[in-house]
């Protein structure tokens, strides 16, 4: 399963989608990234990543109801697929495994 390794930014975006529950559409994601981890990202970058993740099967999307805002255009809401959850989860586990391998002395020194 090549490509199951997530890029760093991909991972962040997936996590952001997950934090936003069912309100995750591109603009909200951009805002979330800004607020939570202070990363200013361009909409175009997020949009491209969302599109790529959807193609990989980590995300699914559906259009919401039209509202009077945004020139009457519908929002596309993203949510994690089980594959997506598996991918972020795995990424966290891999990291955790590495964390766990750090000898406590080294950890102490670094602190």
């Amino acid at each position, binding site marked *: 399963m090549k490509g199951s390794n997530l890029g760093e930014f991909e991972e962040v975006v997936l996590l952001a989608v997950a934090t936003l529950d069912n309100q995750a*559409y591109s603009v909200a994601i951009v805002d979330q990234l800004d607020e939570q981890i202070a990363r200013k990202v361009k909409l175009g970058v997020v949009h491209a990543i969302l599109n790529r993740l959807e193609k990989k099967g980590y995300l699914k999307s559906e259009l919401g109801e039209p509202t009077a*805002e945004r*020139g009457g255009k519908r*929002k596309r809401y993203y949510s994690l697929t089980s594959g997506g959850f598996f991918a972020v989860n795995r990424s966290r586990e891999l990291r955790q495994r590495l964390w766990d391998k750090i000898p406590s002395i080294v950890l102490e020194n670094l602190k």
Partner: protein
Amino acid sequence: MKKNKLPLPPKWATRFLRWYCNRQMAEDLEGDIHEFYLRNIKTKGLKMARFIYVIDVLKFFRIYTVQKPKINHPMNHFLLFKNYFQTSARNLRQNWLFSLINVAGLAISMSVGLLLIFFISEIYTFDTFHKDADRIYRINGSYEYLGKVDNSFYASTSPVTGAKMLASIPGIEHLTILHRGAKSNVTYENKTIPLQLRWASDEFFDVFSFDLLAGNKNTALTALNALVITDESAKKLFGDETPINKQVILEGESYIITGVVAKPPMNSHLQFELLGSYSTYANANKHHKWFSSWNNMWDHYVYFKLEEHQDPSLVQLGLDKISEEENSKSDYIVIKAHLQPLLGIIPGANLNNTFGPTMETKMVWTLVLLGIVVLISACFNYTNLSLGRSMRRSREIGIRKVNGASGFQVWSQFILESTLISLVALMVALGLFLVLRNYFFTIDRRMADIVTLQLTPELMGYFLLLAVAVGLMAGFFPALFFSKVTVLKVLNNMNRIKLSGQFNFKKILILLQYTISLAFIIAVTLIYKQYRYSLSFDLGFNTENILNLNLFDNDPATLVNELKQLPEIKKLSQSSLVTSIGYYWGTQAKKSKGTPDSTSIKYNKVDEHYLPLHGHEFLAGGNFVKGSENDSAVNNQVIINESLLKRFSIDTPDQAIGEEIIISDDVKVIQGVLKDFHFGRIDYKISPFAFIYEPAQNKYLNILINTADVFGTMKKIEEAWKRFDPVHPMKASFYDDQIKEAYKEYVSWLTIMSFMAFLAVTIASMGLLGMVVFTTESRLKEISIRKVFGASEFNLIYLVGRGFMLLLVLAAIVAIPLTYYYVNTVIFEEIVYKVSFSFFDIMMGVIIVMAIALLTICFETVRVARTNPSTILRNE
């Protein structure tokens, strides 16, 4: 909610985004960018927000957002053709009245279009068969006397021009001098036939590409007394014998046939049956002083071929120099030479002294314009009727769009439909055209000399092109309208589609149609009036019952004696010219020998019977006195008109009697003064004129006839003629008929215009009928309810017709001044004596059109108004 409606981002950017972005992403992406835009307005201001919006749109132009071209699309489209075709055919059948109006209107106007294509394509092939035709030029002349600028140009020039050009202007490959020649009698053994002779100098066949069938092209026209004959005439004269080296007699002299040339094709402006070597003509005339003079410019023609890559303007410079040099020799005459390209002869400007028929560019383009106007009018019908039916059709379009048809697909469906109709119309038009073709030739006899109107494959191609063009033109607006229909509107609000916008558009089209119809009708009325006026114009002398007989240079003494025996023939006279039909002899006249003050006059040479026979009115003096042939006092008699009297400042007519004047260097004595009369056509101003006494003219015999049996008398005259001149067929016409003939161009205009008027009115009426049918149909319920409440038929007609009649009145207001101006300035441009038009003349056409329109409206409205309202309202 709409309290603070924020300005929208740049429309074009949004449109661009929608265009490139694939369907799945387009909506939310647009929304996203829009959201940022709104946010930016708050934080960064409107201007910046708009700018960022544009940048964003551009930035999102990426591989994953862009639409993939649909590979199956064109194929689908093609498959749908069958469906389009079916729906179109069904629609045509369902609305048979509209279809009939459309096909009929388009067919009628297209047949005119076909005729025009034929005509134009033939007109523009004139003289193109010559090799290097674009390098061949003719020299035209303009003539000025004592600073009096005469705006007419002549196709002819002095032979001096030709000789001088060769000597002084470089870059001329070949040059030939022609003399107009005349219809001349050619005799071989016992056979004599008249042939059209032209004198041509030796490089004739180098300049032109006429096909020399026998003989040497370099020497055929070199030797004295050499003749080149056309194959057709050779057949007539020699039968099956070979013509080369045969000896023939031409006007009493012996000539040798040195060549046979193919008859000039129809599309050659230069027509001849016999070419004589120019050296023969020059040899016979070179002892005359006038022959080599600069103002000998009335019957010589110079053609030349320029070397390749030479600038014709250099030749013009050279010509200007030659003209200047020659003009400096004379105090009164300024003759200028101008270049005219061979291909600019037909169609070209209206010149004097041309060979054979010409076709004015003005005439060609007027015809084209008229044709296009009629075509457009028929297209309007289509547009109007299609838009009128739009309510019904839009449901179909809505369904199509719901199923995914793009605007372009709908557009092409409607274009296909209109093209189909126009192709059907083309078939009908071809049939009509074959009928029209014969009719066309009768419009103007010259037409048959210019065009053949034969069908060729190339022309068929043009026809198809015409049909497609008409289809596009007719279907364009309906197609555009339907392709813009939005699904929601159509399916939601079926009955409340706003028609106001396009209804105005339709009104404008009807207005235009009626303006056109009115313009044609008014033009016809005006031209007809002028024509009648010209025919019944009082010329100042009698033309009734006078037969003018062409004598072909025979001495008529024996004929006169024979004709005198006939009791029906009252009087006989001779003249060198038939006046008042557009032909003139001109020369110079002076009051006395010493003065340079001379004037150009027109003249006619007549015998002593001419003036009484034509009933000319004398102001002073009397008729010519017959005397012995050698008496100079007799031969010097001249009778002048009032204008010449005034020109020479002689106070009273009586004073003029016995005075001497000089006419072309001869001293003449004034014998009488005539009241001014119209010796020209009425587009010619009366100017100085003189009758010169010369009893033996041998040109025309004027015969005054008084009989009830014109036919029998003509027969007797013809018998006498046959005994008198067996060679020429008798050529005689009544004066009044000749005058009618002289105004033939009005008749041509009249026929063309009335035909076009007929078409325009027919098409416009059909269109109006369609619109009225549509209006009444869509207001059926309203009309029925009104009727239930007691509206009379008149009320209903008024209700429906008011709007249309108002349009017509508006059309009249536009058409009347425009047409009046056009007819007066373009068609009657050169006429001096114009008929005055009354208000009624103009209103007559308007009233006719109004009446037809009213009839159309009444016809349909009454039909609807008479239906029982209960049948219509029952279903409610």
